């Protein structure tokens, strides 16, 4: 049993707080293959296997499984369109992949034995994997911003146009640009740490609640809470990435036009509604 329970088997079990990152199983040169990698491979295999199995035999009169997956994909598509309009539908693959992978990994962390036995560790409870996902999303949305706005894109960070209106305004624009630039870098950090802290914190809370007073079932309400938090955090990660895409491809000029449109809708101009003439 040593391969399954390295600390020995006993009941009631001796819960141990899950480690902050995955523990290396073996090393390949300077790289180590951790148990989080192994669990991530399981998650990828399950999700990819499901996708392959469902799309292998598509029918007009869908099987129950195909129906379920269609509802899921349609729901994600509707959500993306409701956030960023039909133009943002091309980000659905990244959004949906991140959402499904993160939610699946988060829900794995609630299961017993994940994080307890030697070779299983929830992927999103290891900040390296979250950092990788955040970095991929960051590079993707910066690339998309450059592709859409060309050289206008960096103008949101290095904006010299304020010097037309005097040196003070110009200096303020430069300062705001620096704040924007740092918030771009900060986004990677917050995306990583928010997900990691929530999942690992939930796991630690479940362990503590399981070991508290040795009351059976004390952790049960928290399992429900963790399932909900796992869904919300997956949604938040994917939604924030989608919002960053939407923010990256919108230019500031369009924003002003939209604003003026809304203003003219809300506040009717005097020409459209002439004042009633006194009789």
């Amino acid at each position, binding site marked *: 049993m040593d391969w399954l329970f390295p600390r020995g088997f006993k009941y009631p079990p001796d819960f141990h707080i899950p480690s902050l990152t995955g523990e290396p199983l073996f090393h390949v040169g300077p790289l180590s293959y951790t148990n989080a990698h192994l669990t991530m491979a399981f998650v990828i295999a399950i999700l990819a296997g499901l996708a392959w199995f469902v799309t292998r035999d598509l029918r007009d009169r869908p099987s129950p499984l195909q129906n379920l997956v269609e509802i899921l994909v349609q729901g994600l598509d509707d959500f993306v369109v409701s956030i960023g309009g039909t133009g943002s539908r091309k980000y659905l693959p990244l959004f949906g992949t991140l959402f499904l992978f993160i939610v699946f990994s988060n829900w794995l962390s609630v299961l017993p034995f994940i994080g307890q036995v030697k070779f299983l560790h929830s992927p999103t409870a290891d900040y390296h994997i979250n950092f990788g996902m955040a970095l991929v999303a960051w590079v993707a949305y910066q690339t998309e911003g450059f592709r859409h706005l060309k050289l206008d894109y960096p103008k949101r960070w290095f904006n010299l146009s304020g010097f037309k209106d005097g040196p003070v305004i110009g200096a303020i624009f430069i300062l705001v640009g620096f704040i924007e630039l740092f918030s771009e870098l900060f986004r990677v950090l*917050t995306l990583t*740490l*928010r997900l990691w*802290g929530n999942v690992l*914190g939930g796991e630690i809370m479940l362990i503590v609640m399981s070991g508290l007073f040795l009351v059976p079932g004390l952790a049960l309400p928290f399992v429900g809470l963790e399932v909900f938090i796992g869904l919300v955090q997956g949604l938040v990660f994917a*939604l924030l990435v989608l*919002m960053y895409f939407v923010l990256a491809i919108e230019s500031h000029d369009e924003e002003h036009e939209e604003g003026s449109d809304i203003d003219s809708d809300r506040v009717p101009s005097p020409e459209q509604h002439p004042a009633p003439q006194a009789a």
Partner: protein
Amino acid sequence: MEFAGLAAGIAVGFGVLGPGIGVGIIAGKSSEAIGRNPDAVGLIRTNMILGAALAEGLGILSFVLGILLWTRIG
């Protein structure tokens, strides 16, 4: 080193205070908004989750700090 546990507890305790108030305000205001305009429930819910996640991120930062201190113990 012997104060690391105390420091971790204080960091997490005070760090979670602000985001807790913030998330409470967000949830209360969004409930109010749904009460005023029940048709906009989808949009309000999305914005509420987004705002709550952003507020919660600060609390998570203090939690991470607490964990970093906690690993210094012993």
